[in-house]
């Protein structure tokens, strides 16, 4: 027979150390979930009481009273009032005893057994005071114990107090309400209800007494909730008289001194920006050091590893595609988001627990109000510049549902790090030295459109004022490592198992579509060439993108956008592959077409033979082991570059710094009066900038690799393609080195040259640009020929390129962000969000292109009509859902 399980509710004000206490009491026996229907986290803990009974402890979100304003307060209040709990454990902050007792009195009216747990007594003692717990317990009529339960005896005292509360009939303190309210109480009470319902009705916690409230206000000149609160605070004054005793002289508070700087009119914002910068760097860069680890590890286990295993077990091809390429890639994608999500939560928990978060909200509240958001929405926005996934997760710190939705709608506009490689590629191809300005313009467009969206939504979809700002500035607190880690871990787990599921499924679907091939209807009839469903969809959608400057001949541009759904940086590799496939076809129009088919079959056969030859249990094991070794090797590699990132966490400078440095040095050198010493120094500096040393090292490495492979090819002809690749690598390094040397010689020639210095400098400028374009293309893992094709495909038109980038910035976020949004705000709002982003992206890109280059009036009008239609739809929807948002 199963024993009866006792349910206990843990209730208390915010900032009372509730989670620390909950963790200390329940330890590892916890489950985390969501409260039904809302995104508020629910924590349950199991406790074995001394008499052998089991107790489930429900950790309620913090609340100041039973009158809920935000979503989490409503959850807490409803649970407390529902009577589901057999006993209420009320945690009370000893430093703010008076204020905390307000909730205590309200909870007492519910008529449940109660136990009070007093926290922060150590802080109070540091201030020189002590609470007389025995007298307090006597006056309240409930047991009062300390929240400090590190020792076994303290813990047992708490658990005995709970049993005692359950076993005895408590004579709890009662608030005496003014007689003037008696009539109203009688009127507000319904038959068969506990008395307390009438109080809640007059307080406005439960509806149904609006006319009575109005009557009271007419007669007594004030609403009943004010009178009820007055009576409770009068009771509190009575209860606490002489309870807090001064036991020592107060020490000066460090917190107050700290606040003098942190909240200072002039220093407040710089300090805030500094802290935010650190948070960003911590999440993006320190957290980012582990991304490759999870990526490579995920591949070793779930994609390559699983694929090899299935092949060796002679599983059918479709199963391998589904499991390894589909599900495996899905899991791998989820894994790569573990570091940023964990680190953002670690950072947030740290800021929340220390007490800084409330102060940050105070400092920037005025600024954020431009967007119709509270100050605390700043953090998710900032994190959005790194990655939209943790940004969406970070909105969990916002308690108001409307604010959360609005923030999630605006977060994708903060251009995330994954979009940067796309800008970099186009920047290198089209904008040269102006790349930096172009990228800045993109980021700025994102910000401006975020403001536009904020204003639009404020007046349409999410009508109403932002939640009023009532922020307690809690005392500073040294965060407890265990609490902070635990909280971050819980939230991470939540992310992996909820958002992760959707994410893995979405990636699975897209991956499978990417692998399944269908006959290419776009190619000439004779070929049996096959293309993937994704490519097919991309080509089918190409006409949609024509108005924004992606011509039909440039269908690769539209396919890349669809592949970019995996992650936006994949637009680069997609363009790379697609343009590369096309190039040779164009070049070899002459050969007989029939032979193409023959070659293809031959290639397919040889591949099959290769696969069978190569893959044995032994080689699969080696691949797997190599994968794991490689995964671990990524961490020290990533950390090695960590320091460089302090000043450039986004990595924006890959565009310009060296290039500009080189040109700057050259200009200095070409100036008329430069002494020989100075010239030599500049020369040396230029050589460092050109990184000749690095190039020599790269040359040596490439040579070694090539020779090593060349030796093996003799025994194993299958390796021939790798040899080709290695030789191409070597060649490109040699090329770069030659270019760098040419630049150096050019600079040297300045020493002897007299009058034509300016001419030499100009030549240098032109050469250095192409040199850095090559280096950059190296970093972007694409070659110069891609850039040429890219230029050609976009008609060598900067405006076309910029319009395309605007679309990349705006259109639906990657699958990972989509899945996270779906988990956090549901399919309904997510669908609205994704459609809005895509339509807005299309409209903005089209408008930009048509105004600058296209000059087609129709395509200026259409986006405007679309935008107006969106606004109208939002307005209509807003009216419909208004009720739901107002809690």
């Amino acid at each position, binding site marked *: 027979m199963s024993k009866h399980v006792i349910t206990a509710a843990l209730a208390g004000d915010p900032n009372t150390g509730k989670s620390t206490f909950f963790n200390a009491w329940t330890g590892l026996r916890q489950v985390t979930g969501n409260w039904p229907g809302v995104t508020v986290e629910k924590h349950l803990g199991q406790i074995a009481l001394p008499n052998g009974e089991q107790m489930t402890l429900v950790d309620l979100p913090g609340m*100041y*009273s039973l*009158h*809920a*304003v935000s979503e989490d307060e409503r959850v807490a209040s409803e649970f407390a009032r529902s009577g589901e709990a057999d006993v209420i454990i009320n945690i009370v902050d000893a*430093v*703010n005893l*008076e*204020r905390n007792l*307000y*909730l205590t009195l309200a909870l007492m009216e519910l008529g449940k057994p109660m136990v009070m747990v007093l926290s922060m007594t150590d802080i109070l003692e540091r201030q020189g005071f002590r609470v007389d717990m025995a007298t307090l317990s006597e006056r309240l009529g409930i047991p009062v114990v300390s929240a400090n339960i590190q020792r076994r005896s303290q813990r047992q005292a708490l658990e005995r107090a709970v049993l005692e509360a359950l076993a005895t009939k408590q004579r709890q303190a009662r608030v005496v309400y003014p007689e003037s309210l008696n009539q109203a109480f009688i009127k507000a009470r319904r038959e068969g209800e506990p008395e307390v319902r009438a109080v809640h009705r007059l*307080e*406005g*916690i439960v509806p149904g007494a609006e006319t009575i409230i109005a009557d009271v206000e007419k007669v007594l000149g*004030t*609403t009943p*909730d*004010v009178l009820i*609160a*007055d009576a409770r*605070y009068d009771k509190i004054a009575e209860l606490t008289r002489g309870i807090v005793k001064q036991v020592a002289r107060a020490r000066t508070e460090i917190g107050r001194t700290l606040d003098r700087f942190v*909240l*200072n*009119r*002039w220093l*407040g*914002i710089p300090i805030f920006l500094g802290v935010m910068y650190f948070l960003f760097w911590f999440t993006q860069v320190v957290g980012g050091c582990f991304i490759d680890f999870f990526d490579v590890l995920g591949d070793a286990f779930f994609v390559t590893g699983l694929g090899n295993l299935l092949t060796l077990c002679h599983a059918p091809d479709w199963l391998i595609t589904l499991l390894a390429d589909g599900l495996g890639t899905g899991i791998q994608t989820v894994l790569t988001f573990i570091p940023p999500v964990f680190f953002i939560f670690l950072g947030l928990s740290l800021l929340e627990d220390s007490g800084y978060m*409330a102060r940050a*909200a*105070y*400092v*920037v*509240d*005025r*600024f954020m109000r431009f967007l119709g958001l509270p100050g605390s929405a700043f953090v998710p926005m900032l994190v959005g510049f790194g990655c939209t996934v943790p940004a969406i997760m970070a909105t969990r710190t916002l308690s108001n549902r409307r604010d959360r939705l609005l923030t999630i709608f605006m977060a994708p506009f903060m251009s995330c790090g994954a979009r940067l490689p796309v800008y970099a590629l186009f920047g290198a191809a089209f904008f040269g030295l102006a790349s930096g300005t172009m990228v800045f313009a993109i980021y700025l467009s994102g910000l401006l459109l975020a403001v536009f969206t904020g204003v639009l939504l404020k007046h349409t979809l999410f009508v109403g004022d932002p939640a*009023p*700002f*009532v*922020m*307690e*500035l*809690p005392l500073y607190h040294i965060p407890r490592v265990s609490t902070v880690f635990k909280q971050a871990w819980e939230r991470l787990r939540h992310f992996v198992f909820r958002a992760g599921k959707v994410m893995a499924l979405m990636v699975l679907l897209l991956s499978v579509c990417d692998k399944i091939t269908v006959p290419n209807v776009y190619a000439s009839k004779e070929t049996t060439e096959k293309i993937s469903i994704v490519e097919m969809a991309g080509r089918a959608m190409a006409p949609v993108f024509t108005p924004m400057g992606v011509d039909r001949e440039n269908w690769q541009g539209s396919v890349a956008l669809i592949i970019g759904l995996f992650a936006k940086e994949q637009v680069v590799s997609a363009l790379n592959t697609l343009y590369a496939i096309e190039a040779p076809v164009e070049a070899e129009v002459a050969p007989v077409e029939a032979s193409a088919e023959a070659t293809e079959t031959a290639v397919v056969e040889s591949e099959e033979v290769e696969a069978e030859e190569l893959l044995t249990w032994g080689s699969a094991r080696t691949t797997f082991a190599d994968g794991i070794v490689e995964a671990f090797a990524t961490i020290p590699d990533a950390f090695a570059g960590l320091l460089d990132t302090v000043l450039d966490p986004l990595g924006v400078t890959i565009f310009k710094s060296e290039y500009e440095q080189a040109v700057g040095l050259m200009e200095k050198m070409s100036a008329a009066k430069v002494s020989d010493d100075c010239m030599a120094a500049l020369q040396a500096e230029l050589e460092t900038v050109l990184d000749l040393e690095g190039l020599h090292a790269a040359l040596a490495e490439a040579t070694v690799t090539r020779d090593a492979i060349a030796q093996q090819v003799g025994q194993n002809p299958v390796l021939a393609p790798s040899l080709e690749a290695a030789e191409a690598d070597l060649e490109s390094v040699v090329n770069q080195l030659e270019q760098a040397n040419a630049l150096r010689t050019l600079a040297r020639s300045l020493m002897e040259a007299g009058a034509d210095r300016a001419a030499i400098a100009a030549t240098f400028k032109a050469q250095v640009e192409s040199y850095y374009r090559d280096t950059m293309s190296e970093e972007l893992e694409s070659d110069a020929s891609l850039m040429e094709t890219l230029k050609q495909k976009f008609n060598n038109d900067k405006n076309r390129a910029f319009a395309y980038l605007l679309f990349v910035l705006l259109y639906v976020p990657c699958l990972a962000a989509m899945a996270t949004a779906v988990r956090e705000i549901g399919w309904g709002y997510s669908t609205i969000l994704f459609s809005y982003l895509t339509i807005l992206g299309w409209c903005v890109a089209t408008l930009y292109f048509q105004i600058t280059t296209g000059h087609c009036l129709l395509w200026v009008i259409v986006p405007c009509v679309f935008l107006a239609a969106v606004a109208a739809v939002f307005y209509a929807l807003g009216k419909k859902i208004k009720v739901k948002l107002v809690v």
Partner: protein
Amino acid sequence: MDITAMKIGDRAEITGYAETEAGYRAKLLALGLTRGAMIELIGVAPMGDPLRLKVRGFELSLRSSEAKILKLEAVTK
């Protein structure tokens, strides 16, 4: 008078509430901003708003436009 008339360092007693949304009032009441309670303006955020108040021994931050609903009486030092 209302909160916008207070200067940093000023103290005032709460005498009542002007008409407002019930949720906001309930929150302030729960935090101890009841009639007769003392508030002290101890600071202003860098951009001039919100305000930082001391009430019943703890610090609270409110926007001046919203906290205007508090009816106050100045306390002379």
